[in-house]
Protein backbone atom coordinates (compact mmCIF):
# COMPACT_ATOMS: atom_id res chain seq x y z
CA UNK A 1 0.00 0.00 0.00
CA UNK A 2 2.85 2.33 0.95
CA UNK A 3 4.57 1.57 -2.32
CA UNK A 4 1.47 2.27 -4.35
CA UNK A 5 1.23 5.69 -2.76
CA UNK A 6 4.88 6.38 -3.47
CA UNK A 7 4.53 5.25 -7.09
CA UNK A 8 1.36 7.28 -7.58
CA UNK A 9 2.98 10.43 -6.25
CA UNK A 10 6.04 9.81 -8.43
CA UNK A 11 3.82 9.53 -11.49
CA UNK A 12 2.09 12.76 -10.51
CA UNK A 13 5.41 14.55 -10.09
CA UNK A 14 6.70 13.17 -13.38
CA UNK A 15 3.65 14.26 -15.35
CA UNK A 16 3.04 17.58 -13.61
CA UNK A 17 5.27 19.60 -15.99
CA UNK A 18 3.05 18.38 -18.82
CA UNK A 19 -0.07 19.53 -17.04
CA UNK A 20 1.46 22.81 -15.91
CA UNK A 21 2.95 23.62 -19.34
CA UNK A 22 -0.39 23.30 -21.06
CA UNK A 23 -0.80 27.07 -21.34
CA UNK A 24 2.22 27.45 -23.57
CA UNK A 25 1.50 24.40 -25.63
CA UNK A 26 1.06 24.33 -29.40
CA UNK A 27 0.07 21.15 -31.20
CA UNK A 28 0.26 20.29 -34.89
CA UNK A 29 -1.00 17.15 -36.61
CA UNK A 30 -1.36 16.01 -40.19
CA UNK A 31 0.45 15.42 -43.46
CA UNK A 32 3.64 13.42 -43.32
CA UNK A 33 4.93 15.57 -46.20
CA UNK A 34 4.68 18.72 -44.10
CA UNK A 35 5.96 16.92 -40.99
CA UNK A 36 9.73 17.51 -41.53
CA UNK A 37 9.19 21.25 -42.05
CA UNK A 38 6.86 21.56 -39.08
CA UNK A 39 9.23 19.56 -36.88
CA UNK A 40 12.40 21.48 -37.81
CA UNK A 41 10.58 24.81 -37.47
CA UNK A 42 9.19 23.73 -34.10
CA UNK A 43 12.68 22.93 -32.81
CA UNK A 44 14.06 26.30 -33.89
CA UNK A 45 10.97 28.07 -32.55
CA UNK A 46 11.25 26.38 -29.15
CA UNK A 47 14.90 27.47 -28.88
CA UNK A 48 13.80 31.08 -29.17
CA UNK A 49 10.52 31.20 -27.31
CA UNK A 50 9.10 29.59 -24.21
CA UNK A 51 6.46 27.59 -26.07
CA UNK A 52 6.24 23.82 -26.20
CA UNK A 53 5.43 22.75 -29.76
CA UNK A 54 4.49 19.13 -30.42
CA UNK A 55 4.22 17.88 -34.00
CA UNK A 56 2.58 14.65 -35.07
CA UNK A 57 2.04 12.98 -38.46
CA UNK A 58 -0.88 10.76 -39.40
CA UNK A 59 -1.76 12.21 -42.78
CA UNK A 60 -3.58 15.25 -44.14
CA UNK A 61 -6.99 13.73 -43.44
CA UNK A 62 -6.10 13.05 -39.83
CA UNK A 63 -4.88 16.63 -39.40
CA UNK A 64 -8.04 18.09 -40.88
CA UNK A 65 -10.22 15.82 -38.73
CA UNK A 66 -8.28 16.89 -35.64
CA UNK A 67 -8.82 20.55 -36.53
CA UNK A 68 -12.56 19.91 -36.84
CA UNK A 69 -12.55 18.27 -33.42
CA UNK A 70 -10.61 21.24 -32.06
CA UNK A 71 -7.92 18.91 -30.69
CA UNK A 72 -5.04 20.65 -32.47
CA UNK A 73 -4.01 24.24 -33.05
CA UNK A 74 -2.67 23.70 -36.56
CA UNK A 75 -3.54 21.03 -39.12
CA UNK A 76 -0.81 20.27 -41.67
CA UNK A 77 -2.05 19.35 -45.10
CA UNK A 78 -0.36 18.58 -48.39
CA UNK A 79 -3.58 19.45 -50.27
CA UNK A 80 -6.20 22.18 -50.05
CA UNK A 81 -9.08 21.16 -47.80
CA UNK A 82 -11.94 19.57 -49.73
CA UNK A 83 -15.26 21.37 -50.06
CA UNK A 84 -16.93 18.60 -48.07
CA UNK A 85 -14.42 18.93 -45.25
CA UNK A 86 -14.93 22.70 -45.10
CA UNK A 87 -18.70 22.21 -44.89
CA UNK A 88 -18.37 19.70 -42.06
CA UNK A 89 -15.90 21.97 -40.24
CA UNK A 90 -18.17 25.02 -40.51
CA UNK A 91 -21.15 23.04 -39.24
CA UNK A 92 -19.19 22.23 -36.07
CA UNK A 93 -18.19 25.84 -35.57
CA UNK A 94 -14.67 25.61 -36.95
CA UNK A 95 -13.54 28.16 -39.50
CA UNK A 96 -10.55 26.69 -41.37
CA UNK A 97 -8.05 29.32 -42.48
CA UNK A 98 -5.33 28.31 -44.92
CA UNK A 99 -1.70 29.37 -44.82
CA UNK A 100 0.43 28.20 -47.76
CA UNK A 101 3.81 27.72 -46.13
CA UNK A 102 5.88 26.03 -48.82
CA UNK A 103 6.01 24.95 -52.45
CA UNK A 104 6.62 21.35 -53.34
CA UNK A 105 7.38 19.82 -56.69
CA UNK A 106 6.46 16.22 -57.40
CA UNK A 107 9.51 14.79 -59.05
CA UNK A 108 9.36 11.93 -61.54
CA UNK A 109 12.22 9.55 -60.77
CA UNK A 110 13.62 6.54 -62.62
CA UNK A 111 16.50 4.16 -62.00
CA UNK A 112 19.98 5.57 -62.63
CA UNK A 113 20.46 2.97 -65.41
CA UNK A 114 17.54 4.41 -67.38
CA UNK A 115 18.44 6.53 -70.43
CA UNK A 116 15.15 8.44 -70.71
CA UNK A 117 15.65 12.14 -69.91
CA UNK A 118 12.32 13.76 -70.62
CA UNK A 119 8.67 12.68 -70.46
CA UNK A 120 5.56 14.56 -71.43
CA UNK A 121 2.44 14.58 -69.28
CA UNK A 122 0.88 12.42 -72.01
CA UNK A 123 3.74 9.87 -71.71
CA UNK A 124 3.28 9.80 -67.95
CA UNK A 125 -0.44 9.27 -68.30
CA UNK A 126 0.22 6.46 -70.80
CA UNK A 127 2.66 4.78 -68.43
CA UNK A 128 0.44 5.05 -65.37
CA UNK A 129 -2.70 3.89 -67.14
CA UNK A 130 -0.89 0.92 -68.73
CA UNK A 131 -0.91 2.03 -72.38
CA UNK A 132 2.88 2.32 -72.47
CA UNK A 133 4.53 -0.78 -71.04
CA UNK A 134 8.10 -0.74 -72.33
CA UNK A 135 10.72 2.00 -72.21
CA UNK A 136 11.49 1.50 -75.92
CA UNK A 137 8.03 2.89 -76.76
CA UNK A 138 9.19 6.28 -75.52
CA UNK A 139 12.76 6.29 -76.75
CA UNK A 140 14.42 4.26 -74.01
CA UNK A 141 16.03 0.84 -73.75
CA UNK A 142 14.10 -2.36 -74.36
CA UNK A 143 13.03 -2.83 -70.77
CA UNK A 144 9.57 -3.43 -69.27
CA UNK A 145 8.28 -0.55 -67.16
CA UNK A 146 7.57 -1.21 -63.49
CA UNK A 147 5.00 1.36 -62.44
CA UNK A 148 5.30 2.55 -58.86
CA UNK A 149 2.66 4.76 -57.35
CA UNK A 150 1.71 6.05 -53.94
CA UNK A 151 -1.32 4.91 -51.99
CA UNK A 152 -4.46 6.36 -53.51
CA UNK A 153 -5.22 8.40 -50.43
CA UNK A 154 -1.83 10.05 -49.97
CA UNK A 155 -1.61 13.77 -50.67
CA UNK A 156 1.19 13.12 -53.14
CA UNK A 157 -1.05 10.79 -55.14
CA UNK A 158 -3.85 13.33 -55.14
CA UNK A 159 -1.64 15.94 -56.79
CA UNK A 160 -0.29 13.41 -59.29
CA UNK A 161 -3.84 12.26 -59.97
CA UNK A 162 -4.98 15.81 -60.63
CA UNK A 163 -2.01 16.98 -62.72
CA UNK A 164 -1.21 13.81 -64.68
CA UNK A 165 -4.02 11.29 -64.64
CA UNK A 166 -6.86 13.80 -64.83
CA UNK A 167 -9.32 11.26 -63.50
CA UNK A 168 -8.11 8.10 -65.30
CA UNK A 169 -7.39 4.99 -63.28
CA UNK A 170 -3.90 3.87 -62.41
CA UNK A 171 -3.26 0.42 -63.92
CA UNK A 172 -3.97 -2.29 -61.35
CA UNK A 173 -0.51 -3.84 -61.66
CA UNK A 174 1.07 -0.64 -60.32
CA UNK A 175 2.72 -1.10 -56.96
CA UNK A 176 1.17 1.16 -54.35
CA UNK A 177 3.76 2.04 -51.76
CA UNK A 178 3.14 3.76 -48.47
CA UNK A 179 5.85 6.42 -48.33
CA UNK A 180 8.16 8.66 -50.35
CA UNK A 181 11.13 6.74 -49.00
CA UNK A 182 9.70 3.38 -50.02
CA UNK A 183 9.18 4.68 -53.58
CA UNK A 184 12.69 6.15 -53.75
CA UNK A 185 14.37 2.97 -52.52
CA UNK A 186 12.31 0.68 -54.76
CA UNK A 187 13.03 2.81 -57.83
CA UNK A 188 16.70 2.81 -56.86
CA UNK A 189 16.70 -1.01 -56.73
CA UNK A 190 14.62 -1.68 -59.85
CA UNK A 191 16.12 -1.05 -63.32
CA UNK A 192 12.80 -0.55 -65.15
CA UNK A 193 10.96 1.36 -62.47
CA UNK A 194 9.33 4.77 -62.54
CA UNK A 195 7.94 6.57 -59.52
CA UNK A 196 7.07 10.00 -58.21
CA UNK A 197 8.20 11.59 -54.95
CA UNK A 198 8.47 14.98 -53.27
CA UNK A 199 11.49 17.03 -54.35
CA UNK A 200 12.94 16.70 -50.85
CA UNK A 201 13.14 12.92 -51.11
CA UNK A 202 15.30 12.56 -54.22
CA UNK A 203 18.41 10.54 -53.42
CA UNK A 204 21.54 9.68 -55.36
CA UNK A 205 20.09 6.26 -56.07
CA UNK A 206 17.43 7.72 -58.36
CA UNK A 207 17.48 9.90 -61.46
CA UNK A 208 15.21 12.89 -62.04
CA UNK A 209 13.32 13.02 -65.34
CA UNK A 210 12.29 16.34 -66.87
CA UNK A 211 8.59 16.86 -67.44
CA UNK A 212 7.57 18.65 -70.64
CA UNK A 213 11.24 19.64 -71.07
CA UNK A 214 11.24 21.40 -67.74
CA UNK A 215 13.61 20.51 -64.91
CA UNK A 216 11.96 20.49 -61.49
CA UNK A 217 13.87 23.28 -59.77
CA UNK A 218 13.25 26.08 -57.35
CA UNK A 219 12.73 28.64 -60.10
CA UNK A 220 10.52 26.50 -62.30
CA UNK A 221 8.31 25.40 -59.41
CA UNK A 222 7.93 28.91 -57.97
CA UNK A 223 7.08 30.32 -61.38
CA UNK A 224 4.61 27.53 -62.05
CA UNK A 225 6.48 26.61 -65.24
CA UNK A 226 7.04 23.09 -63.89
CA UNK A 227 3.70 21.36 -64.19
CA UNK A 228 3.80 18.95 -61.26
CA UNK A 229 3.93 21.35 -58.35
CA UNK A 230 1.74 22.14 -55.40
CA UNK A 231 1.58 24.14 -52.22
CA UNK A 232 1.77 22.80 -48.69
CA UNK A 233 -0.64 24.20 -46.14
CA UNK A 234 -1.13 24.79 -42.46
CA UNK A 235 -4.74 25.27 -41.39
CA UNK A 236 -5.90 27.05 -38.27
CA UNK A 237 -9.32 27.57 -36.77
CA UNK A 238 -9.99 31.18 -37.72
CA UNK A 239 -7.13 33.64 -38.33
CA UNK A 240 -4.16 32.62 -36.19
CA UNK A 241 -3.75 34.29 -32.78
CA UNK A 242 -1.26 34.14 -29.92
CA UNK A 243 1.27 31.32 -30.07
CA UNK A 244 -0.23 29.93 -33.27
CA UNK A 245 0.33 33.26 -35.00
CA UNK A 246 3.83 33.44 -33.51
CA UNK A 247 4.71 30.03 -34.92
CA UNK A 248 3.27 30.80 -38.37
CA UNK A 249 5.05 34.16 -38.47
CA UNK A 250 8.24 32.32 -37.64
CA UNK A 251 7.71 29.95 -40.58
CA UNK A 252 7.07 32.91 -42.91
CA UNK A 253 10.16 34.75 -41.61
CA UNK A 254 13.41 34.47 -43.61
CA UNK A 255 14.70 32.05 -40.97
CA UNK A 256 11.59 29.87 -41.23
CA UNK A 257 11.65 29.80 -45.02
CA UNK A 258 15.33 28.83 -44.82
CA UNK A 259 14.21 25.79 -42.82
CA UNK A 260 11.68 25.03 -45.57
CA UNK A 261 14.53 25.00 -48.08
CA UNK A 262 16.80 22.96 -45.83
CA UNK A 263 14.12 20.28 -45.74
CA UNK A 264 14.18 20.03 -49.52
CA UNK A 265 11.11 22.13 -50.26
CA UNK A 266 10.78 25.52 -51.89
CA UNK A 267 10.04 28.76 -50.11
CA UNK A 268 6.88 30.72 -50.81
CA UNK A 269 8.63 34.09 -50.62
Amino acid sequence: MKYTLIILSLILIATSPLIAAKKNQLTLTGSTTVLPIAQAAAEAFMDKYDVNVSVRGGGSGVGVAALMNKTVDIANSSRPMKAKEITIAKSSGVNPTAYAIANDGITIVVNTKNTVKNLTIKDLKGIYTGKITNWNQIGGLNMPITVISRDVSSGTFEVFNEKVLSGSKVIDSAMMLASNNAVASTVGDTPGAIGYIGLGYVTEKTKIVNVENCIPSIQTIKSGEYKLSRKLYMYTNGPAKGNTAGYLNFIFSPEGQKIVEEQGFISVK
Partner: protein
Amino acid sequence: MNTYKEKAFRALTYIASLFVILFLFGIIFSIFKEGLPLFKQVNIKDFLLGSAWYPTMATPEFGIWTLIIGSLYVTLGALIIAIPLGLGTAIYISEVAGQRMKEISKPVIELLAGIPSVIYGLFGMAFLAPAIRQWFGLQVGLNVFTASIILGIMVVPIIASMSEDALSTVPKALREASSALGATHWETICKVVVPAAKRGIIGSILLGFGRAVGETMVVLMVAGGSARIPHSIFESVRPMTSSIAAEMGETVVGDLHYAALFAIAIVLFMITFLTNLVTELVFLKRSAR
Protein backbone atom coordinates in the same frame (compact mmCIF):
# COMPACT_ATOMS: atom_id res chain seq x y z
CA MET B 1 -9.56 -5.62 8.04
CA ASN B 2 -8.64 -8.80 6.28
CA THR B 3 -12.08 -9.46 4.90
CA TYR B 4 -12.24 -5.84 3.82
CA LYS B 5 -8.98 -6.20 1.91
CA GLU B 6 -10.16 -9.49 0.52
CA LYS B 7 -13.32 -7.89 -0.82
CA ALA B 8 -11.46 -4.91 -2.27
CA PHE B 9 -9.09 -7.25 -4.04
CA ARG B 10 -11.95 -9.23 -5.50
CA ALA B 11 -13.65 -6.09 -6.69
CA LEU B 12 -10.44 -4.85 -8.29
CA THR B 13 -9.85 -8.03 -10.30
CA TYR B 14 -13.51 -8.08 -11.26
CA ILE B 15 -13.32 -4.50 -12.54
CA ALA B 16 -10.11 -5.24 -14.43
CA SER B 17 -11.65 -8.16 -16.31
CA LEU B 18 -14.84 -6.19 -16.91
CA PHE B 19 -12.78 -3.46 -18.54
CA VAL B 20 -11.14 -5.92 -20.91
CA ILE B 21 -14.53 -7.19 -22.03
CA LEU B 22 -15.78 -3.61 -22.36
CA PHE B 23 -12.85 -2.73 -24.59
CA LEU B 24 -13.53 -5.74 -26.81
CA PHE B 25 -17.19 -4.87 -27.23
CA GLY B 26 -16.33 -1.21 -27.68
CA ILE B 27 -14.01 -2.05 -30.54
CA ILE B 28 -16.48 -4.42 -32.19
CA PHE B 29 -19.28 -1.87 -31.80
CA SER B 30 -17.28 0.97 -33.32
CA ILE B 31 -15.98 -0.90 -36.37
CA PHE B 32 -19.52 -2.02 -37.15
CA LYS B 33 -20.93 1.46 -36.52
CA GLU B 34 -18.42 3.09 -38.86
CA GLY B 35 -18.38 0.31 -41.46
CA LEU B 36 -22.02 -0.65 -41.92
CA PRO B 37 -23.15 2.71 -43.43
CA LEU B 38 -21.18 1.71 -46.56
CA PHE B 39 -23.77 -0.92 -47.39
CA LYS B 40 -26.49 1.70 -47.72
CA GLN B 41 -24.75 2.77 -50.91
CA VAL B 42 -22.68 -0.23 -51.98
CA ASN B 43 -24.11 -3.70 -52.51
CA ILE B 44 -22.49 -6.30 -50.18
CA LYS B 45 -21.91 -8.62 -53.12
CA ASP B 46 -20.18 -5.89 -55.15
CA PHE B 47 -18.10 -5.05 -52.11
CA LEU B 48 -16.91 -8.59 -51.39
CA LEU B 49 -16.62 -9.91 -54.95
CA GLY B 50 -15.89 -6.76 -56.96
CA SER B 51 -12.33 -6.65 -58.17
CA ALA B 52 -11.84 -2.92 -58.68
CA TRP B 53 -10.51 -1.01 -55.69
CA TYR B 54 -10.50 2.64 -56.74
CA PRO B 55 -11.74 4.39 -53.61
CA THR B 56 -10.67 7.94 -54.49
CA MET B 57 -11.87 8.19 -58.07
CA ALA B 58 -14.65 10.61 -59.04
CA THR B 59 -16.95 7.58 -59.22
CA PRO B 60 -15.31 5.41 -56.57
CA GLU B 61 -15.31 1.62 -56.77
CA PHE B 62 -15.12 -0.46 -53.63
CA GLY B 63 -14.46 -4.06 -54.62
CA ILE B 64 -12.24 -5.87 -52.14
CA TRP B 65 -11.98 -9.30 -53.80
CA THR B 66 -8.37 -8.59 -54.86
CA LEU B 67 -7.55 -7.49 -51.31
CA ILE B 68 -9.06 -10.65 -49.82
CA ILE B 69 -7.12 -12.77 -52.31
CA GLY B 70 -3.98 -10.78 -51.50
CA SER B 71 -4.38 -11.53 -47.80
CA LEU B 72 -5.07 -15.22 -48.41
CA TYR B 73 -2.12 -15.66 -50.79
CA VAL B 74 0.47 -14.24 -48.44
CA THR B 75 -1.07 -16.08 -45.49
CA LEU B 76 -1.11 -19.46 -47.25
CA GLY B 77 2.46 -18.82 -48.46
CA ALA B 78 3.46 -18.07 -44.89
CA LEU B 79 1.87 -21.29 -43.63
CA ILE B 80 3.57 -23.37 -46.32
CA ILE B 81 6.87 -22.10 -44.94
CA ALA B 82 5.95 -22.03 -41.26
CA ILE B 83 4.25 -25.43 -40.85
CA PRO B 84 7.25 -27.64 -41.73
CA LEU B 85 9.68 -25.37 -39.88
CA GLY B 86 7.45 -24.94 -36.85
CA LEU B 87 6.41 -28.56 -36.60
CA GLY B 88 9.95 -29.77 -37.19
CA THR B 89 11.21 -27.50 -34.43
CA ALA B 90 8.46 -28.65 -32.08
CA ILE B 91 9.23 -32.34 -32.69
CA TYR B 92 12.93 -31.71 -32.24
CA ILE B 93 12.49 -29.88 -28.95
CA SER B 94 9.89 -32.23 -27.54
CA GLU B 95 11.12 -35.61 -28.77
CA VAL B 96 14.74 -35.46 -29.89
CA ALA B 97 16.64 -32.76 -28.02
CA GLY B 98 18.32 -33.41 -24.71
CA GLN B 99 17.22 -31.62 -21.55
CA ARG B 100 19.84 -28.87 -21.85
CA MET B 101 19.11 -28.17 -25.52
CA LYS B 102 15.42 -28.06 -24.70
CA GLU B 103 15.96 -25.44 -22.02
CA ILE B 104 17.92 -23.25 -24.41
CA SER B 105 15.97 -23.63 -27.63
CA LYS B 106 12.45 -23.00 -26.40
CA PRO B 107 13.13 -19.52 -24.96
CA VAL B 108 15.15 -18.67 -28.08
CA ILE B 109 12.16 -19.49 -30.31
CA GLU B 110 9.86 -17.52 -28.08
CA LEU B 111 12.29 -14.61 -28.40
CA LEU B 112 11.66 -14.68 -32.13
CA ALA B 113 7.98 -14.02 -31.37
CA GLY B 114 8.93 -10.93 -29.39
CA ILE B 115 10.62 -9.06 -32.25
CA PRO B 116 8.44 -6.11 -33.31
CA SER B 117 6.89 -6.65 -36.73
CA VAL B 118 8.27 -3.40 -38.13
CA ILE B 119 11.76 -4.85 -37.69
CA TYR B 120 10.75 -7.89 -39.74
CA GLY B 121 9.38 -5.46 -42.32
CA LEU B 122 12.58 -3.43 -42.44
CA PHE B 123 14.62 -6.57 -42.85
CA GLY B 124 12.38 -7.71 -45.68
CA MET B 125 12.43 -4.37 -47.45
CA ALA B 126 16.14 -3.64 -47.09
CA PHE B 127 17.73 -7.08 -47.40
CA LEU B 128 15.40 -9.87 -48.49
CA ALA B 129 13.53 -8.06 -51.30
CA PRO B 130 16.68 -6.89 -53.17
CA ALA B 131 18.23 -10.34 -52.73
CA ILE B 132 15.14 -12.11 -54.09
CA ARG B 133 15.01 -9.69 -57.00
CA GLN B 134 18.57 -10.65 -57.92
CA TRP B 135 18.32 -14.39 -57.30
CA PHE B 136 15.24 -14.80 -59.44
CA GLY B 137 16.03 -12.08 -61.96
CA LEU B 138 12.83 -10.17 -61.25
CA GLN B 139 11.80 -6.58 -61.85
CA VAL B 140 10.96 -5.97 -58.19
CA GLY B 141 11.50 -7.86 -54.97
CA LEU B 142 8.33 -6.71 -53.22
CA ASN B 143 5.96 -9.60 -53.92
CA VAL B 144 3.91 -12.49 -52.55
CA PHE B 145 7.00 -14.68 -52.22
CA THR B 146 9.02 -12.21 -50.13
CA ALA B 147 6.04 -11.33 -47.93
CA SER B 148 5.31 -15.04 -47.37
CA ILE B 149 8.85 -15.76 -46.25
CA ILE B 150 8.86 -12.93 -43.71
CA LEU B 151 5.36 -13.74 -42.44
CA GLY B 152 6.33 -17.41 -42.31
CA ILE B 153 9.28 -16.62 -40.04
CA MET B 154 6.93 -14.64 -37.81
CA VAL B 155 4.47 -17.51 -37.53
CA VAL B 156 7.09 -20.21 -36.80
CA PRO B 157 7.33 -19.40 -33.07
CA ILE B 158 3.54 -19.67 -32.62
CA ILE B 159 3.34 -23.07 -34.33
CA ALA B 160 6.58 -24.35 -32.76
CA SER B 161 5.78 -23.28 -29.23
CA MET B 162 2.14 -24.43 -29.17
CA SER B 163 2.80 -27.70 -30.99
CA GLU B 164 5.62 -28.42 -28.57
CA ASP B 165 3.19 -27.92 -25.68
CA ALA B 166 0.78 -30.35 -27.34
CA LEU B 167 3.49 -32.94 -28.04
CA SER B 168 4.88 -32.84 -24.52
CA THR B 169 1.46 -33.49 -23.00
CA VAL B 170 1.21 -36.83 -24.84
CA PRO B 171 1.40 -39.41 -22.00
CA LYS B 172 4.70 -41.18 -21.56
CA ALA B 173 2.92 -44.53 -21.45
CA LEU B 174 2.00 -44.20 -25.12
CA ARG B 175 5.63 -43.75 -26.15
CA GLU B 176 6.76 -46.63 -23.93
CA ALA B 177 4.06 -48.93 -25.30
CA SER B 178 5.10 -48.09 -28.85
CA SER B 179 8.76 -48.79 -28.11
CA ALA B 180 7.82 -52.02 -26.36
CA LEU B 181 6.09 -53.17 -29.54
CA GLY B 182 9.37 -52.76 -31.41
CA ALA B 183 8.74 -49.41 -33.08
CA THR B 184 11.78 -47.22 -33.71
CA HIS B 185 12.04 -43.71 -32.26
CA TRP B 186 11.08 -42.24 -35.66
CA GLU B 187 8.06 -44.54 -36.04
CA THR B 188 6.92 -43.67 -32.53
CA ILE B 189 7.05 -39.94 -33.33
CA CYS B 190 5.28 -40.25 -36.69
CA LYS B 191 2.67 -42.82 -35.89
CA VAL B 192 1.98 -42.36 -32.19
CA VAL B 193 3.05 -39.04 -30.70
CA VAL B 194 2.13 -36.66 -33.53
CA PRO B 195 -1.32 -38.24 -34.15
CA ALA B 196 -2.01 -38.12 -30.41
CA ALA B 197 -1.20 -34.40 -30.35
CA LYS B 198 -3.14 -33.74 -33.56
CA ARG B 199 -5.68 -31.37 -32.06
CA GLY B 200 -3.11 -29.13 -30.46
CA ILE B 201 -1.03 -29.05 -33.63
CA ILE B 202 -3.96 -28.09 -35.86
CA GLY B 203 -4.95 -25.51 -33.27
CA SER B 204 -1.48 -23.97 -33.41
CA ILE B 205 -1.63 -23.82 -37.21
CA LEU B 206 -5.00 -22.07 -37.09
CA LEU B 207 -3.69 -19.54 -34.59
CA GLY B 208 -0.70 -19.01 -36.88
CA PHE B 209 -3.15 -18.39 -39.71
CA GLY B 210 -4.94 -15.78 -37.63
CA ARG B 211 -1.65 -14.08 -36.82
CA ALA B 212 -0.53 -13.98 -40.45
CA VAL B 213 -3.83 -12.78 -41.86
CA GLY B 214 -3.93 -9.88 -39.40
CA GLU B 215 -0.30 -8.83 -39.75
CA THR B 216 -0.08 -5.32 -41.14
CA MET B 217 3.34 -3.72 -40.98
CA VAL B 218 5.18 -6.49 -42.80
CA VAL B 219 2.78 -6.73 -45.73
CA LEU B 220 2.59 -2.96 -45.99
CA MET B 221 6.36 -2.86 -46.34
CA VAL B 222 7.10 -5.91 -48.49
CA ALA B 223 4.00 -7.07 -50.37
CA GLY B 224 4.18 -4.27 -52.95
CA GLY B 225 0.59 -3.15 -52.88
CA SER B 226 -0.93 -3.75 -56.35
CA ALA B 227 -4.65 -4.27 -55.97
CA ARG B 228 -5.10 -7.14 -58.41
CA ILE B 229 -5.07 -10.92 -58.48
CA PRO B 230 -1.47 -12.04 -59.00
CA HIS B 231 -0.60 -14.46 -61.81
CA SER B 232 2.49 -15.77 -60.06
CA ILE B 233 4.05 -15.68 -56.62
CA PHE B 234 6.50 -13.08 -57.90
CA GLU B 235 3.84 -10.41 -58.37
CA SER B 236 2.85 -7.92 -55.77
CA VAL B 237 -0.45 -7.94 -53.89
CA ARG B 238 -2.34 -5.62 -51.59
CA PRO B 239 -3.63 -7.41 -48.50
CA MET B 240 -6.63 -6.01 -46.59
CA THR B 241 -4.53 -4.87 -43.66
CA SER B 242 -2.20 -2.78 -45.84
CA SER B 243 -5.14 -1.04 -47.44
CA ILE B 244 -6.55 -0.01 -44.11
CA ALA B 245 -3.21 1.11 -42.70
CA ALA B 246 -2.07 2.98 -45.79
CA GLU B 247 -5.30 4.72 -46.65
CA MET B 248 -6.89 5.57 -43.31
CA GLY B 249 -4.53 8.48 -42.65
CA GLU B 250 -5.72 10.54 -45.58
CA THR B 251 -9.41 9.78 -45.83
CA VAL B 252 -12.10 12.30 -45.06
CA VAL B 253 -13.74 11.21 -41.81
CA GLY B 254 -17.32 10.06 -42.43
CA ASP B 255 -16.68 9.66 -46.14
CA LEU B 256 -17.67 6.57 -48.13
CA HIS B 257 -14.00 5.59 -48.42
CA TYR B 258 -13.69 5.88 -44.64
CA ALA B 259 -16.70 3.59 -44.19
CA ALA B 260 -15.25 1.17 -46.76
CA LEU B 261 -12.01 0.86 -44.77
CA PHE B 262 -14.03 0.04 -41.66
CA ALA B 263 -16.03 -2.47 -43.70
CA ILE B 264 -12.73 -4.15 -44.63
CA ALA B 265 -11.96 -4.17 -40.92
CA ILE B 266 -15.26 -5.98 -40.33
CA VAL B 267 -14.33 -8.65 -42.90
CA LEU B 268 -10.89 -9.03 -41.36
CA PHE B 269 -12.37 -9.19 -37.87
CA MET B 270 -14.83 -11.90 -38.96
CA ILE B 271 -12.03 -13.99 -40.44
CA THR B 272 -9.81 -13.85 -37.36
CA PHE B 273 -12.76 -14.13 -34.97
CA LEU B 274 -14.04 -17.28 -36.69
CA THR B 275 -10.60 -18.92 -36.81
CA ASN B 276 -10.03 -18.19 -33.13
CA LEU B 277 -13.48 -19.43 -32.21
CA VAL B 278 -13.05 -22.69 -34.14
CA THR B 279 -9.59 -23.13 -32.67
CA GLU B 280 -10.80 -22.65 -29.12
CA LEU B 281 -13.95 -24.73 -29.43
CA VAL B 282 -12.78 -27.63 -31.56
CA PHE B 283 -9.06 -27.99 -31.27
CA LEU B 284 -7.92 -26.54 -27.97
CA LYS B 285 -10.53 -27.69 -25.50
CA ARG B 286 -9.22 -26.12 -22.32
CA SER B 287 -10.53 -28.92 -20.09
CA ALA B 288 -8.90 -31.61 -22.20
CA ARG B 289 -5.44 -30.24 -21.54
